[in-house]
């Protein structure tokens, strides 16, 4: 035998261990080391200082200990949002996602052996297009935030203009990621302030500053404070009057109840799709939604699935418009993205088909009503007030005027997580907190929250 057997159960994943000598002989060498003679001897590792392999049972015990060092949503109520949210995931989703024919497959380069995943992604694109009110959608990007980066780059490619407007009230993470995505192309990011009373975009500012160099304007609806824009038609008009692209960030679960971005003239729609059947998972894996108009097809980043036929005329699916992509166009591709979030898009497909039209409406309605109910009960308590007047979805901002310095810590003492303090990123929003309430919060969760707030 060559060397000694590895420990633990790595053998379970290396089936040829007992055939090594036979295979070496067939090749015409006598040791495994002879297969590594092309590595200069001074670069060879003698022994890697890492623990030896363990059995499955041992590994499971180690991970169980680590899991116990986390506290989950089901052990304590969590009212945090700000990018990802807790929603109910029907058992059907994990059942289908557990099919290893799906999850253990690669990007479907070989269409004939991947019809299942390709059809599911075609269905994903169709449903995303429908709920966003757009003509086409791609088969996912990394997350809603990098989708914004890609949207800015796409606006630049289409308009050849170099300024991109974003609302001042977006998360600092989103701003940072966007900057990193566009810096290399020399695109300038400018900010549109929000109205302090309503939390809505300052339309007058936009009207005044938008010009012939504006590639695109990004509006979040609902925005980071959870509020729906009231004057979205006027915003769209201002943007299109200047020949700029109107990029809208949406919350997919709101789309059963509110107007789709397509209804108010969006050119590109992006969003975080985690809420569509994907666990919060400590903030990832996420799902970048990206939908647009057909006329921009050639500018789209990422994989796109098309319907065609096979050589017998039978309907079939395949990846299409690949000449946009890095593996063909290399340095001139529309994006560098290769691996995407396919399995998360599959979860969204199963989830949306499980909901159906009625379900999407109901879950949106439930989220909105539940959030209003909780907000009203919070602001009925004396040290709390609502900060913005606008209509919101399932997140909202409240101000705390009590004496305690850190509201969060008080809540944590009562076993509640959230809301998210906004002050670190919005210094003007002193002692303001962003709460998220969804259909997953039980009456008991809400009682625990209110009890804790009463003592704040």
């Amino acid at each position, binding site marked *: 035998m060559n060397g000694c057997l590895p420990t633990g159960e790595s053998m379970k994943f290396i089936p040829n261990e007992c055939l090594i000598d036979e295979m070496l002989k067939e090749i015409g060498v006598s040791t495994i080391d002879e297969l590594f003679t092309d590595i200069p001897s001074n670069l060879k590792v003698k022994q890697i200082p890492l623990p030896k392999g363990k059995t499955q049972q041992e590994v499971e015990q180690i991970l169980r200990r680590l899991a116990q060092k986390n506290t989950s949503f089901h052990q304590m109520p969590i009212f945090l949002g700000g990018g990802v949210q807790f929603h109910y995931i029907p058992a059907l989703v994990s059942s289908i996602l557990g099919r290893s024919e799906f999850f253990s497959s690669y990007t479907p380069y070989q269409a004939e052996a991947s019809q299942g995943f390709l059809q599911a992604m075609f269905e994903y694109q169709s449903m995303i297009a429908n709920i966003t009110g757009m003509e086409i959608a791609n088969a996912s990007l990394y997350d809603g935030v990098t989708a914004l980066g890609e949207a800015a780059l796409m606006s630049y490619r289409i308009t050849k203009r170099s300024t991109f407007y974003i609302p001042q009230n977006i998360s600092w993470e989103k701003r940072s990621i966007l900057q990193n995505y566009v810096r290399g192309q020399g695109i300038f990011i400018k900010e549109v302030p929000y109205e302090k009373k309503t939390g809505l975009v300052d339309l007058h500012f936009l009207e005044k500053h938008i010009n012939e160099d504006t590639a695109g304007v990004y509006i979040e609806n609902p925005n980071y404070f959870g509020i729906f824009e009231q004057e979205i038609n006027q915003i769209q008009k201002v943007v299109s009057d200047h020949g700029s692209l109107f990029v809208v960030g949406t919350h997919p679960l709101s789309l059963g109840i509110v107007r789709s971005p397509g209804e108010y003239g969006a050119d590109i729609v992006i969003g975080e799709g985690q809420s569509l059947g994907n666990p919060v998972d400590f903030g990832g894996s996420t799902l970048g939604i990206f939908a647009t108009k057909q006329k921009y097809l050639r500018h789209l980043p990422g994989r796109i699935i*098309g319907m065609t036929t096979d050589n017998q005329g039978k309907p079939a699916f395949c990846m299409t418009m690949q000449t946009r992509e890095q*593996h063909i166009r290399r340095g001139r591709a529309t994006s560098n993205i290769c691996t995407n979030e396919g*399995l998360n898009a599959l979860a969204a497909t199963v989830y949306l088909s499980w909901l159906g039209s009625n379900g999407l409406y109901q879950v949106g309605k439930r989220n909105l009503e539940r959030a209003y109910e909780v907000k009203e009960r919070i602001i009925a308590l004396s040290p709390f007030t609502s900060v913005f007047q606008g209509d919101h979805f399932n997140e909202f901002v409240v101000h705390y005027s009590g004496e305690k310095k850190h509201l969060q810590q008080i809540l944590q003492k009562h076993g509640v997580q959230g809301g998210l303090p906004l002050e670190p990123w919005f210094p003007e929003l002193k002692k303001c907190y962003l709460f998220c309430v969804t259909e997953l919060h039980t009456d008991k969760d809400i009682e625990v929250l209110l009890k804790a707030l009463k003592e704040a």
Partner: protein
Amino acid sequence: MCMYHSATFDEPLLVDLACSSEKVFKKMEKLPPSLQRKQPLKLPDLDETQLVRHFLHLSQMNFGIDSGMYPLGSCTMKYNPKLSETISGWEQFQCVHPYQEGSTIQGSLEVMYEVERWLATLTGMEQFTLQPAAGAQGEFTGLLLAKAYHEAHGDFQRKEVILPDTAHGTNPASATMAGFKLVEISSTAEGTVNIDELEKAVSENTAVFMLTNPNTLGIFESDIQQIARVVHKAGGLLYYDGANMNAIMGKTRPGDMGFDMVHVNLHKTFSTPHGGGGPGSGPVGVKQRLESFLPVPRVEEHNGEYFLSYDYEQSIGKIKSFYGNFPVILKAYVYMLLMGGDGLTRASEVAVLNANYLKHRLTQNKAYELPFRTLRKHEFVVSSQPLKAQKDIKALDIAKRLLDYGVHPPTVYFPLIVKEALMIEPTETESKASLDTYVQILHKIAEEDPDIVKAAPTTTPVHRVDEAKAAKEPILTWDMRK
């Protein structure tokens, strides 16, 4: 050997399974009517039995690594241990929010911290970030780090990224996206980096040289130390594309070779499933001199307590929402613990053995030529040019015919410098028996009637798909059908 055979269903689209689908709903009291949806929703309304059967049928028309051998070159389609799937589904990992207070997320932070340490040890780098969602995003992150590094040193003119002509397509795409100018150098007759060309290409404008080692031909760049000297002497940085890391774990380390930055693909080398396209994870590791530029937050430890630190003034900021694709990171950690340092080393050894064995047996038939030197690492590229010349059988035809035999084809037509390229990476998780079968099938195809090969596949749910038509007349949603 009993091979995979796909089920075939004429499975309708969801929208065609449902009887009626258009719905407009009554207005809600809480919202002004002007905000409410007017366009009909057209999601299918189906019961769960119908849905299960629909998606089950689709799954049965999809080939995964659990279905059979999947030797896609540079993709490292190795078996995905089931334990990783089980553990990543645990509620205490899944139902945790990234903004929770530190004491309630110690388990997840420890997993991240440990994965960073393992990767640093395996690659010879000092510090890691787990934020990038995929290999391409890792490359992009590395290039932004390089830019920040050069600018911090006043080297604003360093705007060129040099690449060998064998580079993965993501390398030039990432470099362009990060705002660099591309300089491509051709390979030697040996299929390796041409050092003379590299010396000519480097200058005071060089920001980064991106390289995969072993390269995409599966050849180890034995002159890597000299390459590093050339790049460093010119003031450039050396970037390691870790797509081919499965060849060298425990054998040699990019950090020791002279690389300043690496990305690894957890969804390749560390066995996490590809999910039909993703999610992946592309952690980036750097040497000390680049550490201060890494994305925030960083996972740190003090007296056994783990926390997220944002305290890095020179950081490039953020590249992906929150902390990366956590479940992928968790699955990779399970794999690392199962394998251990010794098991990972053995994995690379056997991955290389399997590739060389397969290459040796395959090229015994003259239909498959091996360009460049013989010794390969975890993958190899053969040219099926003889079959094209003699029988007009293209690499694509061979790929499609392999599907009829119930195995997945290799990567074809890459790298671009090899005509009729078949890029094969069997990985260590394939048995000798499956390698032998794969060889037998490829040898058999070489002898087959060209008409049969060119008509392939015929046993799959659909025959050869008309991709040209798909691009010419795009139908991208069910509403776009005529």
